[in-house]
């Protein structure tokens, strides 16, 4: 083992049916360091962590841990715990109605009886040593989320842990609480604990980490000292695009839209929802395709959800065709001619057990009204029309949508919104997890709809797709709108430098 290393993972492979989730990944964690594990969706971060914590069995490679001879085998989370690998997840997995001390000791005492006094004293000692503002006899639910998070960490650390994994620990904390958490992390670092820090907030990575390991598509991109990896390079490594890769600029469409008269269709000012995004301004013109870009968790989806009224809007004004309107829930947006294809197709899009026909007519039916159901014959006619138009592969109109492939399900949801004849259509990740052919179909459709005068907001994790379809991009970082790019600025390197921010500011 390398000097100072507490954990080494060599040539880790993990295969799921049809996907190589991890290929030959190496990872080294040193004593007393905070090591950020970075990567976009599907890069393999969580798979690597699950292999390390025994949730998944690895298909190849070795794991070495300080103090153990030779490679160790971790077959279950209990094994990992015993070997000194502790994990604290995004959601707090403690019992809110027990006291802090009970939470610290639950499931750890082998004895039938407990010495409550001793337990409380020990807990207070640990809390003090880590500067956690809580007392042993407080009920956990009486503590703030940040303190609960810290107690979860304290519990993990107290179990003689050498490796602490923090999986998105900050996503439900405010700035102040994040600062406190970082204090605790630095404290632990000084005590020699190796911390693996998984987050999607770039600022936070640069604030506390010593090293960064980047994964992409299940492969190791590299391990870097934080000083040697400026933000822009980190973003380009995560996205897998070189800085000066200008090959994918959209040529024709970009110039064309710039010349057109721009009639604003929908405008928002200072819009903010209860999801933590900062107030943002937004507008879209008739016949325009724009998009939100940014890393995973940067607030892309939250923005469009605020526009559609899917989340609770807490501030801001919106206008359509120059007239102020109010959107408080999805039906308000639908009545204004807005359609929204949600990011999570399974949870928010399809009505699984209902037929393709019913899924297609649903939104339009809701707009039409409770006492005006579509006649059966009309339902079949409309469903067939859109199935043919979008080339949906389905046995017939009565097939349950749940039995269709992902791409075809997505087309059905697109059909649902097209049937409402929207003036403004929001497509959040319409191309995720679907085959190349369908992806191209959807992109072509977006451009066709825009040419007919519809405004379309298109979101995709793949920057290439956005460059091909959008004439204006709103860039998000850490739940904030940080820039708007159009015309000549619309290229990979400019997008990446805006996403990365930091140095340029």
């Amino acid at each position, binding site marked *: 083992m390398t000097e100072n290393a507490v954990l080494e993972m060599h040539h880790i492979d993990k295969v799921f049916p049809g996907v190589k989730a991890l290929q030959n990944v190496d990872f080294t964690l040193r004593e007393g360091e905070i090591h950020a594990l970075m990567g976009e969706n599907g890069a393999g971060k969580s798979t690597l962590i699950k292999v390390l914590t025994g949730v998944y069995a690895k298909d190849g490679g070795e794991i070495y841990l300080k103090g153990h001879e030779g490679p160790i085998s971790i077959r279950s989370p209990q094994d990992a715990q015993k070997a000194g690998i502790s994990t604290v997840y995004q959601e707090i997995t403690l019992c809110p109605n027990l006291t802090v001390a009970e939470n610290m000791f639950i499931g750890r005492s082998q004895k039938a009886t407990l010495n409550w006094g001793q337990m409380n004293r020990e807990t207070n000692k640990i809390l003090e040593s880590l500067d956690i503002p809580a007392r042993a006899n407080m009920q956990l639910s009486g503590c703030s989320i940040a303190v609960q998070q810290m107690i979860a960490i304290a519990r993990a650390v107290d179990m003689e842990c050498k490796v602490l994994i923090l999986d998105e620990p900050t996503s439900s904390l405010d700035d102040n609480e994040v600062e406190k958490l970082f204090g605790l992390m630095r404290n632990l670092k000084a005590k020699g604990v190796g911390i693996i820090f998984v987050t999607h907030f770039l600022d936070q990575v640069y604030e506390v980490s010593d090293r960064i390991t980047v994964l992409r598509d299940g492969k190791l991109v590299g391990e870097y000292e934080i000083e040697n990896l400026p933000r822009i390079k980190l973003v380009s490594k995560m996205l897998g695009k070189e800085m000066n890769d200008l090959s994918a600029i959209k040529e024709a469409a970009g110039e064309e839209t710039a010349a057109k008269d721009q009639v604003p269709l929908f405008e928002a000012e200072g819009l903010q929802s209860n999801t933590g995004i900062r107030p943002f301004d937004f507008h879209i013109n008739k016949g325009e395709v724009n998009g939100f870009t940014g890393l995973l968790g940067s607030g892309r989806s939250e923005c469009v959800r605020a526009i559609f009224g899917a989340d609770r809007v807490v501030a801001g004004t919106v206008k359509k065709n120059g007239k102020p309107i109010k959107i408080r829930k*999805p039906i308000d947006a639908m009545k204004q001619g807005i359609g929204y294809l949600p990011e999570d197709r399974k*949870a928010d899009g399809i*009505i699984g057990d*209902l037929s393709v026909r019913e899924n297609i007519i649903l939104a339009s039916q809701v707009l039409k009204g*409770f006492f005006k*159901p579509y006649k059966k014959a009309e339902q079949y006619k409309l469903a067939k029309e859109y199935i043919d138009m979008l080339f949906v592969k389905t*046995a017939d109109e009565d097939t349950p949508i749940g039995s269709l492939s992902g791409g075809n399900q997505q087309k059905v949801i697109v059909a649902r919104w097209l049937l409402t004849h929207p003036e403004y259509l929001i497509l959040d990740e319409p191309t995720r997890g679907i085959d190349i052919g369908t992806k191209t179909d959807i992109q072509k459709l977006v451009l066709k709809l825009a040419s007919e005068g519809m405004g379309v907001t298109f979101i995709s994790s793949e920057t290439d797709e956005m460059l091909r379809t959008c004439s204006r991009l709103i860039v998000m970082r850490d739940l904030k709108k940080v820039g708007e790019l159009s015309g000549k600025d619309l290229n990979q390197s400019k997008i990446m430098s805006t996403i990365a921010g930091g140095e340029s500011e």
Partner: protein
Amino acid sequence: MKKSGTGLFRNQLFIPLAALLLLMIFNLIADPSFFKISLGYNSAGNPVLSGYLITILDYGSELAILAIGMTLVTAASGGQDISVGAAIAIAGSVILRVLCGTNPRPDKMQAPIIVAFLVACLVAALFGAFNGILVAVFRIQPMVATLILYTAGRSIAAWINNNQLPIVKDPSFKYFGGLIPGIPIPVPFFIAALCVLIIFLVLRFTTLGLYVQAVGINERAARLNGLNPVFIKILSFVILGLCVAVAALIKTSRLSTINYSVIAKDIEMDAILAVALGGNALSGGKFNMWASILGAYVIQALTTTLFKFNVQSDALPAYKAVVVIILVVLSAPTVRNKIYEVTKKFRTRKQEGEAV
């Protein structure tokens, strides 16, 4: 993705129909007199049809009416209302309170029956809304939420009439649970038929069915399609409340009085069973109204058959429990997956065999 034919087995009506057929075959072999229908005259000299089949149609009415509401509640909320029996006690008590006024034994009705019925509808709908709000707004499990009314309902019913047992002497009140002179078929059957017709028209000429199913299957997606899941869930409980009021009218009319602790006892379990027997998932989502209604009559047929073979009414629930166990176990996801795996294995083996 290939459909394996729209055969009888795929049809949701298959389960209740098969159960009904089994019951009928059993009766046919055990004692064919089960099917005898005779025309006689009652003490008032009016013609009346009698026989076990008529009994099933008569006494299955309340259950069929409740099955309508219970189906909607199940589909929309993914849970069941267990306060139905207690709610019938309340609605029945309200009817008697309005008809009798303060004097429990009046010689004349103090208000028209229709007024009493409408007040009962209002009260039952309000209690339905109460359950619905607990479930939809406060997100309490339906069975737990309705446990409140289940526990309190019969005392509320007694309280409405100061714990007295009013008796309606007017013979016209007896029509709803008995016979109209000259027509030999029991009136409850016609009331149930009317309710079935109404729900048929509602499902045909409104989008209730689509909305209820959408909310029951995927609440989040339903909301993003402009639906208000909270309202639709409450609405389903209110509709069940209206069904309760109709059932209460029949129940009180049958006796012309009320027994707070016995009226419609355990009827909620039969109503839930009717929904399950109709092949509807008790976890909500898609539903088939006709299968539930048929299921209600199948349960009544089972009850009547058991009575005919002199099973004590105390022992009845035990027999029904056997049916419930079989149904629930068969529809449990783990069992269904197991069956699916076994049949799949069988199919692949067959295919391999063919390939060789």
